[in-house]
């Protein structure tokens, strides 16, 4: 895009963008580490993920401060206004994703005493992968201002919903079969629910990218499972 006449305005927008990218990459790494916990159940790694959420919270605060300063100083309009507002909202969604990942890490830690992987874990792994793919797409949609990719994120959220629903049924079955599974399966249930919510936040972010790029909002109804 053409540069602003005031180049420091470009620098401010660029630095906001960089902060969002840093935040999104941290969130994606947190999610990826947390997915590894399912197999490794490494308490040290879980601890690191839980502590790591602080940095993500700080980034959100930083983005908010920067965005507010930019609004006050530049009174942005059109694409600039949409970008600053979308950035604020995206940072909020990323922060929420961070919290949900942290919660999953805690659940993994709490259930790490369980000696063997219970049934259902394989499907949870699949859910983790779907979520990771959505997060990657979301990041790229934001980075490239790619409305097509944003729409894809938006359309594909249904895959996560569907998987979550079937995992829910499966876990219920295991719990009924053997009450000793209940403790661990409950954690997995909540993890699955958290992952479904992470998917929703990724979808929100995709909607913000769409707004940022086109100035229009996504239709109200999105494909639902």
């Amino acid at each position, binding site marked *: 895009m053409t540069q602003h006449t005031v180049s420091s305005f470009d620098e401010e927008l660029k630095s906001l963008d960089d902060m969002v990218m840093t935040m999104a990459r941290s969130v994606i790494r947190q999610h990826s580490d947390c997915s590894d916990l399912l197999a490794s159940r490494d308490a040290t790694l879980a601890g690191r993920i839980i502590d790591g959420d602080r940095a993500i919270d700080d980034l959100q605060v930083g983005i908010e401060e920067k965005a507010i300063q930019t609004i006050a100083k530049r009174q942005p309009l059109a694409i600039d*206004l949409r970008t600053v507002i979308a950035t604020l909202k995206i940072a909020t969604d990323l922060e929420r994703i961070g919290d949900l990942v942290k919660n999953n890490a805690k659940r993994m830690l709490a259930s790490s005493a369980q000696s063997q992987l219970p049934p259902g874990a394989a499907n949870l792994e699949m859910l983790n992968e779907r979520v990771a793919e959505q997060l990657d797409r979301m990041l790229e949609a934001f980075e490239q201002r790619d409305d097509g990719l944003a729409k894809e994120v938006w359309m594909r959220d249904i895959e996560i919903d569907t998987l979550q629903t079937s995992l829910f049924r499966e876990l219920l079955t295991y719990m009924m079969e053997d009450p000793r599974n209940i403790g661990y399966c409950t954690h997995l249930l909540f993890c699955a629910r958290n992952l479904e919510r992470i998917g929703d936040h990724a979808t929100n972010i995709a909607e913000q990218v769409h707004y940022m790029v086109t100035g229009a909002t996504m239709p109200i109804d999105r494909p639902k499972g």
Partner: protein
Amino acid sequence: MHGVAGMSVQQIEGATVRPLPTTKIIARDVNVHYGEKHALKAVDVDIPDCSVTSFIGPSGCGKSTFLRCINRMNDTIASCRVTGKIEIDGRDIYDKTLDVVQLRARVGMVFQKPNPFPKSIYENVAYAPRLHGMSRSKAELDQIVEASLEKAGLWGEVKDRLGDSGTGLSGGQQQRLCIARAISVNPDVILMDEPCSALDPIATARIEQLIDSLRQHFCIVIVTHSMQQAARVSQRTAFFHLGTLVEEGPTTDIFTSPKDKRTQDYITGRFG
């Protein structure tokens, strides 16, 4: 009553027949030349009544030129040639039979630099109504002066010194005096060419508030260099560039999602 023949009647008819908001001004294929210079190119626009429309765009893009077409101020510039059609309330204002003096009473104008007459505050406001024979008595004229100053938000500040010179007021007060003067003849349209650019932020805020309150009675067109001012005071915004009307629409759309790249580049400060 004291308007251009035909206009008031049409307005009365319009009020009963047409739903609000009505279109007040219609411009079609308006071109302006200053000698060889083609300053305004094929402008088409509809301007609604009882609302504020702002004209934005870089200096020299033709905003003032177009504004001056609406009250035929361009007639006073020898090299200036206007073609196309402009209607107010369905009446062609370039019609040969139209009385230009009456037109300018119907279409008031406020300029960038407050320009009160070097006369008393009272006379500044009373001058035009008297000229147009709007009052039969001193009491009636007093009434018009008070009402105009009241509408312009100045009455409270000057009611005890109506005999003082208008030029002795502060810049913001002078501009409100000019607005009172413009509305004293009960116009249909008020044109404002950068009315706040010589004022401090507080005086500007008062004028903006005034514009907002006048909106219910008048069709207001304002030229402004401040995007924020356009966003605050106007319901519709038109962007001009190099003599062309590039884009016109609801102000919120223009400032959040303009359609034309030139509009976007201008309002986001990416020009040149």
